[in-house]
């Protein structure tokens, strides 16, 4: 089998029913997709398969033979973060970070697919992703900001946005 991972063609040796998640993490050491529930219920393992967000834990390797896979490693670099990565940092959309890779990949697909900054539409697009830390508000803030083309200094955190959205308590 063969996968093009973040632009690099890569031969795969795992068995055909190995999950794409295990191919990425265990065979190739690409650890941004997280093994959360490994039964489709959390979204931490989401990667892009030919541009579409997919639960890598539910995907048998043989079913994506020849496909192009994008993980967080293919978004930006630590020195040059992608807009989604910058927005997540600036809007404090990650706390423990466990859901963040999946959230960012699903967000990237939503944005690439022409998604708007409508909060309900974003919520719908990320609906399969569980976050136990942020309460989601800041994640939605981040995605909406990218859609609006806002630029930010990733070193500065937008304090208090969530509070504002929850009724101006800040």
């Amino acid at each position: 089998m063969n996968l093009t991972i973040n632009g690099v063609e890569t031969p795969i040796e795992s068995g055909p029913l190995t999950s794409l998640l295990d191919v990425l993490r265990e065979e190739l050491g690409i650890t941004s997709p997280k093994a959360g529930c490994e039964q489709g219920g959390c979204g931490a393992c989401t990667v892009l398969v030919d541009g579409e967000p997919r639960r890598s834990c539910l995907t048998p390797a043989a079913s994506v033979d020849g496909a192009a896979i994008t993980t967080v490693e293919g978004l930006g670099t630590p020195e040059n973060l992608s807009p989604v990565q910058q927005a997540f940092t600036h809007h404090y959309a990650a706390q423990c970070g466990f859901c963040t890779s999946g959230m960012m990949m699903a967000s990237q697909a939503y944005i690439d697919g022409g998604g708007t900054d409508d909060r309900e539409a974003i919520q719908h697009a990320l609906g399969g992703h569980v976050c136990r830390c942020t309460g989601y508000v800041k994640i939605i803030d981040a995605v909406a900001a990218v859609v609006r083309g806002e630029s930010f200094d990733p070193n500065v955190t937008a304090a208090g946005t969530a509070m504002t959205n929850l009724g101006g308590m800040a």
Partner: protein
Amino acid sequence: MASEVLMPSSPSEAVSLFGDGAATTVIGGGTVVMPEITYGRLAPDRVLLLTNAGLDTVAVDGDTITIGATTRVDALAELGIDGLTACAGNVADGEIRSQATVGGNLCVGQGHEAPRGDLQGALLALDATVRSTGSDGERTESLETFLPHRHARLVLEVNFTRPAASAFAALEYPHTHEYTVLAVSGTRTADGTIRLAATGVAGPGARLRSAESAASDPEAAGAAAVNDVTFADDSLASAWYREQTLPVLVRRVLAQLEEST
């Protein structure tokens, strides 16, 4: 032990590789089977992986619609049948709907703690027929006949007629990943026939025939529906709760059908 994984590249190859279906595990989208394998609850010897089998065609010929077994759940919305769109849109979340197949939804076994196979309801209400293959060769039968005997069959396609109106109502649940507690689907054909079906009951989806006969009186239809099914009692809801709510869903579906007159 490593499984033998067969990847047919045409429907006819899928049929011949499936053979009598004995000891063959079919994988459509894999959204149910993959966790079973990952967690070691299933170690299949022989797997038929349908990814490239060419069973994902959707053919619309006037009002007759034929969908291949590996058609993705999210593709059903494109048919523009309200009840089916709503039912399919209620399955899991967008990422899973774009991977999960119709055949997998019809053939999925009962969950350990929850009923599943939501599309069964919408397709029963559409009076769909199923073409499948297995030990006695190919067979085309109503979905209702097929469901209790679906094991060791390979679903090839599902066929139905576009209804004049269709509707869907489900108990709401707090998160996309909860399975549907209880849902009712309904259709009205051009000649005024009403068909109703429920999922979230014990066993596969079921037609609500007593409710159908009483359809002109929604109160009576709702009350009658509880005689048409056995209620599941599981981690999502008690049988008592489902029995109380089925009449409500039947009334909602009949009201929706009435509105689209």
